[in-house]
């Protein structure tokens, strides 16, 4: 950039030693609110392919940084006044079916331990990719999402309704389900995994295997795997203790 800062009179300018450089990096990390530089795992060859969450978050970054004005605004309404957005890709997926009732569902478990405690959640979305269904031609499908509030050993789990979307079996693209209402429970049990359960029904109420409806899970290509995005409004930046 411009002329570097002039050293105060009488002070010799010199390069930082390795330890001072590490201290400087730690200081800048603290300003950026990062506890420490994460150990980047050497991504396996497959992981170098663009994954769905980073691709979506990069669009958000351009929208938040103001570059996104050209293409007509942010990729989601939820960006609003958020100043922290977290995407969660580490999830466990279960595909269930209760034989005698022919009841099918997909369940996703998220580790929420990284969610910053005390920050206000302004929105949360679950994003899952849908291919055109080759099994249910010309049908209307109802996709409903529930939070698993409590599992019961001797009966069905307690569920909390979150969102319902209606679409055509031949539709394709990202399906966005609003799971903001689940965030109220996160703050109550910050260390409990979040369980999201997804059902698909035809208009006559018959339960359909989500995979047959074209909904992609963890087995999908990396750029089409499901993920969750949470938007936070961070409180007033805490005054940092003098170091």
């Amino acid at each position, binding site marked *: 950039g411009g002329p570097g800062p002039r050293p105060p009179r009488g002070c010799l300018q010199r390069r930082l030693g390795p330890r001072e450089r590490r201290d400087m990096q730690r200081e800048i990390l603290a300003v950026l609110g990062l506890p420490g530089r994460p150990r980047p*795992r050497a991504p396996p060859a497959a992981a170098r392919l663009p994954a769905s969450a980073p691709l979506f*978050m*990069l669009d958000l*970054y351009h929208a938040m940084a103001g570059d996104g004005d050209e293409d007509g605004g942010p990729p989601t309404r939820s960006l609003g006044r958020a100043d922290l*957005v977290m995407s969660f890709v580490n999830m466990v997926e279960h595909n269930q079916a209760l034989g005698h009732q022919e009841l099918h569902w997909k369940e996703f478990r998220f580790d929420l331990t*990284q969610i910053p405690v005390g920050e206000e959640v302004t929105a949360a979305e679950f994003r899952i990719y849908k291919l055109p269904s080759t099994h249910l031609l010309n049908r209307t499908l109802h996709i409903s999402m529930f939070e698993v509030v409590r599992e019961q050993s001797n009966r069905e789990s307690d569920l909390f309704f979150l969102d319902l979307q209606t679409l055509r079996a031949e539709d394709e693209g990202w399906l966005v389900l609003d799971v903001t209402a689940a965030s109220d429970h996160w703050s109550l049990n910050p260390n409990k995994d979040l369980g999201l359960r997804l059902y698909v029904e035809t208009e006559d109420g018959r339960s359909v295997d989500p995979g047959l409806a074209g909904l992609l899970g963890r087995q999908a290509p990396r750029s089409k795997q499901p993920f969750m995005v949470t938007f936070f409004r961070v409180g007033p930046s805490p005054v940092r203790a003098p170091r």
Partner: protein
Amino acid sequence: AARPLKRRPPKKTNELPHPHKLPGIFDDVHGSDGQHVCRRHKLYVSFQDLGWLDWVIAPQGYSAYYCDGECSFPLDSCMNATNHAILQSLVHLMKPDAVPKACCAPTKLSATSVLYYDSSNNVILRKHRNMVVRACGCH
């Protein structure tokens, strides 16, 4: 017929003389002893130089800028000095050892956004406030 209004003598103003009106006052960017007056300077923070690009997805770095320069009386109007700074500079002229000059610091700051991986490989987008200097002034 309305009596002509009696012209009131102009109110005595006790405001400080505007620097541009005083004779011999420099109004270019150089202060009294050839030093630069308080203003914003370029400063680019490179995540690349810091070796962080393996976990910062975007940006590669950002322009943070910094403020540097003299706050010498008369504080030129481009320094958008506070009234307090003007008074402090005056008192400094009278008692240079007792009261320091006003100092050059940011008067307007804006945010910058950083996209990075956390330790569990989740992707985080965070807007950091007060990271970019928009304007400098004397305080």
